[in-house]
């Protein structure tokens, strides 16, 4: 019985992803989700309360983003520019590996309603938590604008991932092969090393402590 419940929940969450990818937020409703998942809609209300809560739950699980905070592998970096470069490449791969997330992010550009907000909020919180991780780990000078840096490069990455689904080339860069992405990774690393001054590590125990805070 308990296993059935988990199975049903996961079927419902999968149906949410499929419907969002196909037709976006404006036509998403409990009835359509129930039909797609092949379950009675009463179960959706029982397990997830309502549509906004269901979307939040969908946003928290791995089909949407790998983790809501900085992934564990970020821990091993001891140089700030190295960590930032890695974080952006990680982010790019995470998005490229998740076609449903790509579709959903696309809808953010086209629609603005209560439901798009739920998933935008999940991503915004993830970004803020991942950025906070940099500040918890390193003593970053106040005048080093890591936020603006990660915004322009992260947005650039996002745009190129989304756009490459339909159009493999951008100016002279070819994103249908690894070559285009490779050039992008190299320039990102170059940019970060050019403008980010390495910062000292904070004491290990403070890092650990703050890191667990960010999961709240």
């Amino acid at each position, binding site marked *: 019985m308990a296993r059935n419940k988990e199975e049903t929940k996961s079927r419902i969450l999968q149906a949410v992803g499929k419907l969002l990818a196909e037709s976006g937020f404006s036509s998403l409703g409990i009835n359509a989700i129930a039909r797609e998942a092949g379950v009675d809609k009463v179960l959706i209300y029982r397990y997830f309360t309502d549509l906004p809560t269901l979307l939040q739950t969908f946003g928290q699980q791995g089909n949407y983003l790998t983790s809501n905070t900085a992934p564990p592998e970020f821990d091993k970096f001891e140089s700030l520019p190295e960590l930032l470069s890695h974080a952006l490449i990680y982010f790019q791969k995470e998005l490229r590996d998740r076609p449903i997330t790509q579709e959903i992010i696309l809808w953010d550009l086209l629609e603005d309603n209560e439901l798009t907000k739920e998933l935008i909020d999940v991503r915004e919180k993830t970004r803020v938590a991942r950025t906070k991780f940099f500040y918890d780990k390193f003593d970053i000078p106040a005048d080093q604008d890591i936020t603006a840096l990660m915004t322009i490069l992260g947005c650039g990455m996002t745009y190129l991932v989304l756009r490459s689904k*339909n159009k493999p080339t951008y100016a002279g860069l070819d994103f249908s092969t690894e070559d285009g992405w490779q050039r992008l990774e190299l320039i990102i690393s170059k940019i970060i090393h050019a403008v980010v001054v390495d910062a000292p590590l904070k004491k290990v125990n403070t890092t650990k402590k703050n890191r667990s805070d960010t999961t709240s």
Partner: protein
Amino acid sequence: MARDREETKIRIVAAIGRQLARAGFRDLGVNSIAKEAGVDKVLIYRYFGGLPELLAAYAREGNYWPTSAELIGDPTTVKAESVADWLVYILTKVQMAIRQRPITQEILRWEIVDHNELTKEFAAIRTRVAMECLVFINQQYPFPPELDTLALCTIILSGIVYITLRTETNPYYLGMDFSDPTNWDRINKLVTAIIYQATNCNMPESVLQSIDRRGNFYGSQ
């Protein structure tokens, strides 16, 4: 009669831009364009053949994207003495062109999700303009051989485009509120620092007044 026909054609083509800006690409079709232009849709088929041909006609007009001549301006009056000076100068103009033109933004959105006569032509125009500008700059001041200038411009411009489109529906990104111009200012200072540092160019006095060479962006104002 011939004059009427040309006039009607112009009216129909012009209706596309208005329709894109107001209702967006998802509602764009022969019916909505005919309504916006105030003509019978039969005329659209008669004069253009159909929606693809009509989009192609609109695409050829091309005034949703600046030309390289507009971007470069009069080189004798531009105060640019290095690769970085030129790149920052032109990227700033491109950014303004995107942020100030709702029609352009809508075509950019459309381009991400769809392939059609207009988005294809739009991509071709942007690539051509970008190449003309880069060739021009390279003639004035050669690009550093070890730098992938094309990739540099691509990531920066992509970032600008995405921030513009994305903050149109929700102004927040990484805690920054992009309806507040000071946050665009932060992005622009950072982009300026990136360009000068990546190309290894000296920042002119005017730039050094707001950012420093090590990449201190907003603290040193």
